[in-house]
């Protein structure tokens, strides 16, 4: 079975985010970028399924040349091929546009896929839209926020997290599945893998060459502002014997904050 994995380059979760309010954009200088953590689970799962069942695992991203780094990481982990869908625009926060680009790419270039894997959301835009939207564009079943996948022949079962429970979802292939933390423990790249990934040629396809109209490539979301969240003020801090501090804390919760 051939598997396509869709990944994104994002700022490290330890990063402090700064804004350029004039440009309605995040300041990228000084940020460390990584493969989005949920995408790493998706990549790992693709490698496990490929190793068990054969076929190819191809990793794809939509982005600028800078995104080649995360594709190389995936190649070093063990992906067979990588493709960059080159987008002239910076982050649009428009999941529909990204999904349309991906769906058109899959239809045109990889019609023989069996499984499309994504992270449940990118860490950053936090949209959690693209997997479901790609599934709808391609008319495929979807299972999101998955912590376990079993593939047997041309069907699968995935365990999806919902509030306080898991749904066991059965689906025919091809299908879209998005990964949640807990799905697996991603492997580290080997030195040999890193060397091979460096040499591998990565095809770059400009998204304008996928046959989409300028309207289809224009964002339908207009960014009207970006801001930092309100700064919280540090409150009272107490020390002392636990009997006293716990009494003060309970008093604060009940009498002052009135939350208990």
């Amino acid at each position, binding site marked *: 079975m051939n598997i396509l994995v869709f990944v994104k380059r994002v700022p490290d979760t330890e990063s402090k985010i700064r804004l350029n309010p004039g440009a309605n954009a995040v300041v990228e200088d000084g940020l460390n970028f990584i493969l989005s953590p949920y995408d790493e689970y998706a990549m790992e799962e693709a490698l496990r399924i490929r190793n068990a069942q054969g076929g190819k695992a191809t990793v794809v991203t939509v982005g600028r040349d800078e995104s080649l780094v995360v594709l190389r990481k995936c190649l070093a982990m063990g992906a067979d091929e990588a493709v960059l869908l080159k987008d002239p625009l910076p982050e649009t926060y428009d999941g529909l*546009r990204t999904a349309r680009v991906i769906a058109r790419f899959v239809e045109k270039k990889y019609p023989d896929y069996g499984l499309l894997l994504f992270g449940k959301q990118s860490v950053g835009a936090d949209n959690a839209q693209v997997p479901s939207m790609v599934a709808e564009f391609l*008319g495929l079943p979807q299972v999101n926020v998955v912590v376990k996948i079993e593939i047997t022949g041309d069907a699968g079962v995935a365990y999806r997290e919902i509030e306080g429970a898991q749904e*066991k979802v059965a689906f025919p292939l091809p299908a879209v599945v998005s990964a949640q933390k807990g799905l697996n423990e991603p492997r580290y790249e080997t030195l040999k893998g890193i060397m091979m990934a460096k040499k591998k040629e990565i095809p770059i396809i400009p998204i304008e060459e996928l046959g989409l109209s300028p309207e289809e490539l224009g964002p339908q979301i207009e960014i009207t502002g970006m801001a930092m969240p309100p700064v919280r003020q540090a409150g009272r801090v107490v020390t002392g014997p636990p009997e006293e501090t716990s009494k003060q804390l309970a008093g604060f*919760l009940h009498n002052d904050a009135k939350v208990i």
Partner: protein
Amino acid sequence: MILTYIELRDGKIKKASLEALSEGRRKAAELNQQLAAVVLGVGKEGLAPEIFAYGASQVYFLENPAFKQYSTQDYAFGLAALAKKIAPEVIFFSATALGKDLAPRLAVKLGVSLASDCTQVIVKEGRVEFTRPIFAGKALLSVTLKSSPKIATLRPNVFPLAEATAVLGDVIKESISLPEDRPRAWVADILEEQGGELDVSEADVIISGGRGMKAPENFDLLRQLSALIPRSAVGASRSAVDSGWIGHQHQVGQTGKTVSPNLYMAFGISGAIQHLAGMSSSKVIVAVNKDPDAPIFKVADFGVVGDLFQVIPSLKEELKKVLA
């Protein structure tokens, strides 16, 4: 018209849906529009009075035997059929597991973009602006949607419930026929988490533990506190989860859940930037930590510098007194 999707779990309306309905009522008044709601299932009309009470003047009940169990594809099909018929200006979902799964699929069927997990909806000169956290709350993004209907998912526990009033409206039943040969995913089983614990994303109070908890069994201390406090849930920091002390579904922060409870209690959590991002929009934050310089104290409304293993047992007794 503003249309609000009403989500059911075990036959009951989720609180998050009533919050979305309440926000729908406020925005409908500002936009001078009607508020409608939609329920999918079979024989659910008994829920109408509760929905009217939160301000809807029409409730659409979409029926098909397949709607008894949630299926993204079938539900999106039903909702798209309704949206094309009644042409709402705005559609609200709550940003629950189901809402996040369903809304994007409907958006594609209607050919529109989507604003996810919004924490504020503002009407400005007749235009609707959606504000949503990005980077798990490290920054806020405001957007408008160019196409119509404007679909948004609203974060649970953020939008206040409107006051319920006894009013009546129209019940409209629609029978939906689904395409026959659809390759669809279906829910074969639902496995409830042991102990029936409340999810952190839905809790009014979150009692969280970090590296300072030292061992998995010590999370029982937090579970004991949770047992005392109504609508509370146990949360955890990434380091506690990555140490294998508690399941990742409890994780709060950038690779876990972003939460806004009424009260967030942090025990033995230092306050790494990715954790603070995920909980700083809580209404009240309290922290107990041995280290007086822990960053968590910079965001806490009340902090206790001390040993959590000594503070929790006496806090339990104090809470029993005030809750009695």
